[in-house]
């Protein structure tokens, strides 16, 4: 196997952080090479250096036998590097064709480009209408635009940054079929992910990063997911303990719940027992935020739709529901769950004020707030200098631990969380999941809304899917396969596997 890309001794230092240190690895022709590591392990910095967004401090890169030191992404693209970003680098108000043109150095005239987009997208089984606006496309379709944009440049090296995080399992399968096809045509693919099963079944080699250094390059098929995770984290993963839970009486009933908004909920019904975790899966934008808002009280609903312990909560706001023991943690950590500019102890006041008696006679008890914030920090291993630190200064994983911890320590009767481990590294995610399980073990009911199906299978007793604002009937998680879940989520959205002659 000839090397398409090779890195030797790459290093990059940011103020206070050694992001990359002596990185060396290579990607061969036709290889799907995984780059594996926790959040903050240096994957993005490394990839940004290859794509010309960041200049390395030391070391060198070689692409097709030529030294590779791109001054900017245009130079990198000219040299044959293409990249599909984790957070889409698309322009909502522009059309598919315009977005593709922006990713090319010398785009052909408009009509030719549109024709080529149609041709290439159909050839790879990713049909796209070049005249559609990005804003009207689904997440899967948006990713197709990114991929087609790359394919039109005949890249030597294609970088994919966590591409499956927004896809249904069926969409992910189609993506892998496309990648295989590309690899068979000789493209080298650098695949970034922290989904171990995905890497084990689809990648030829994996380079594992930890704290900015290469731990090793291995054959992912020769190792168990457990071993890979251990290399990634540097220690054995905590094993999730599901024992000790006995579902009790019904505590929460939701029926005929409908809402307004961009993705309105339609006649949602569910029941939750004490000591039970109900998992709600679905691709982003299918009503998850609306459901959380309806349950938390941000968006009050018609009378009789949300009932807890026989009390109708439907018309109550969030604070009244919190007093009764219905707590929630929204998906957006910064700005929704926490105020970035406020200190951690001030942030505890926002949701825990009433339940922890942090406000007395209308005045804030700052020392009590600080004590409670310290309790959360200690119980959930939040890495921060102290409760006086601004929430916005914490890393995503640490802030998420804090947000979840704040609610869990509030001793909720019912806890609703949306995307509890999104963008959180493996160690922190395990801690958060364990906390949710422990909470259910203490007779609380927990609703976990998530796009991470592995997480839902691991945590939940029953599983339902949210699709276009409708909630499916719950099914026991035990014995449910990923394929069945995929169908519950709405399948592959009309995509098909491509038919390009190799």
């Amino acid at each position: 196997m000839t090397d398409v890309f090779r890195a030797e001794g790459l290093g990059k230092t940011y103020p206070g952080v050694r992001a990359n240190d002596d990185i060396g690895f290579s990607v061969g022709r036709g290889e799907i090479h995984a780059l594996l590591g926790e959040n903050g392990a240096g994957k993005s910095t490394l990839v940004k250096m290859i794509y010309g967004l960041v200049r390395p401090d030391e070391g060198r890169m070689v692409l097709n036998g030529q030294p590779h030191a791109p001054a900017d992404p245009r130079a990198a693209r000219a040299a044959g590097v293409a990249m599909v970003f984790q957070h889409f680098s698309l322009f909502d108000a522009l059309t598919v064709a315009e977005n593709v043109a922006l990713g090319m150095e010398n785009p052909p005239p408009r009509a030719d480009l549109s024709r080529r987009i149609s041709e290439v997208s159909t050839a790879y089984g990713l049909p796209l209408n070049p005249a559609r606006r990005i804003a009207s496309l689904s997440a899967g379709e948006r990713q197709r635009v990114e991929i087609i944009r790359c394919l039109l440049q005949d890249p030597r090296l294609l970088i994919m940054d966590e591409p499956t995080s927004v896809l249904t399992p069926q969409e992910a399968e189609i993506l892998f079929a496309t990648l295989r096809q590309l690899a068979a045509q000789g493209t080298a693919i650098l695949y970034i992910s922290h989904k171990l099963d995905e890497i084990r079944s689809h990648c030829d080699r994996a380079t594992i990063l930890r704290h900015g250094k290469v731990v090793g390059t291995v054959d992912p098929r020769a190792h168990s997911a457990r071993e890979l995770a251990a290399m990634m984290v540097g220690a054995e993963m905590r094993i999730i303990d599901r024992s000790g839970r006995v579902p009790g009486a019904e505590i929460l009933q939701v029926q005929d719940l409908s809402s307004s908004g961009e993705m309105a909920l339609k006649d949602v019904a569910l029941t939750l027992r004490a000591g039970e975790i109900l998992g709600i899966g679905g691709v982003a934008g299918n009503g998850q935020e609306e459901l959380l808002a309806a349950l938390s009280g941000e968006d009050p609903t018609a009378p009789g739709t949300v009932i807890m312990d026989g009390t109708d909560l439907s018309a109550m706001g969030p604070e009244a529901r919190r007093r009764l023991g219905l707590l929630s943690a929204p998906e957006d950590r910064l700005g929704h769950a926490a105020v970035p500019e406020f200190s951690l102890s001030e942030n505890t006041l926002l949701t825990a004020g009433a339940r922890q008696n942090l406000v007395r006679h209308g005045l804030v008890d700052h020392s009590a707030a600080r004590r409670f914030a310290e309790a959360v920090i200690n119980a959930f291993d939040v890495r921060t200098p102290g409760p006086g630190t601004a929430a916005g200064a914490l890393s995503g994983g640490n802030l998420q631990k804090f947000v979840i911890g704040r609610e869990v320590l509030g001793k909720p009767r019912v806890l609703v969380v949306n995307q509890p481990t999104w963008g959180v590294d493996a160690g922190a995610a395990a801690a958060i999941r364990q906390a949710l399980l422990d909470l259910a073990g203490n007779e609380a009911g927990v609703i976990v809304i998530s796009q991470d199906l592995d997480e839902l299978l691991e945590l939940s007793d029953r599983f339902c899917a949210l699709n276009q604002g409708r909630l499916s009937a719950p099914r026991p998680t035990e014995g449910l396969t990923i394929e069945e879940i995929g169908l519950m989520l709405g399948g592959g959205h009309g995509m098909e596997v491509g038919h390009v002659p190799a």
Partner: protein
Amino acid sequence: MISVFILLLGAATPILFAALGELVAERAGVLNLGVEGMMVGGALAGFAAAHATGSPALGFAVAALAGAALSMLFAMMTQYLLSNQVATGLALTLFGLGLTAMFGKPYEGVKAPAMMAGPLGLNWMIWLGLAMVPVVWWFLVRTRPGLILRAVGENHDAAHGLGYPVRAMRIAALAFGGAMAGMGGAYISIATVLQWTEGMTAGAGWIALAIVVFAQWNPWGVLAGAWLFGGVTVLQLRLQAAGVAVPVQFLAMAPYLATILVLVLISARQKFGRSGGGAAPGSLGRPFHALR
């Protein structure tokens, strides 16, 4: 009837210039509330140059330079020092008004040189303003620099990720916006009022800002908005001249009321209508800082 339309074109021209310039800046993602300041700066600089040289054409050229220079002050503050765009824009307006009040004293009571006449009894600046509408539209929609400019305004992080110069694009758009605002202001002093008075732009810059929203960031909509405003202005002058028994102040308010009404209707349509969203550029008014 035709004479009324000519009056309307004249009344619309300063706003058309300023709004087209602001539209380009906003499509690049920068909200410059200093339009009024740049207009009044252009009005004085242009008038002074036209008076000194006797050439209105030279006056407009100097006005464009003055407007662009003021916009570069804004560009330096917001693009390099990352100051708040709203506050900086307001400051620019106050700065422009104060600066011209001071330096304009010697020009009070002086008469402007005669405008050069153009075809069909309309002066060349009216024609230039009308021509700029399709030019701006063509640039934004059909050319690659225009596409990059829209991309920068829509999502500056993504544009940076693809390797496009966000800051340079925005500074260029601001310079264009400043030059257009300067010429718009000079049209008031050189071609409409024919003399300099303190604060003579009288809120035209604010109307231009409102018209950009009214137009939903579309150059043709800017033309419609400028004509609507010009039409109401001419109408209220006519009604005053005809001695309609309505207090003059109410008639003078009419164009501004009409603008507010249209903005309310647009917001209501977006809020309650099916279309949703709106045409505002995604990164409008947000500061951009790249980590290298």
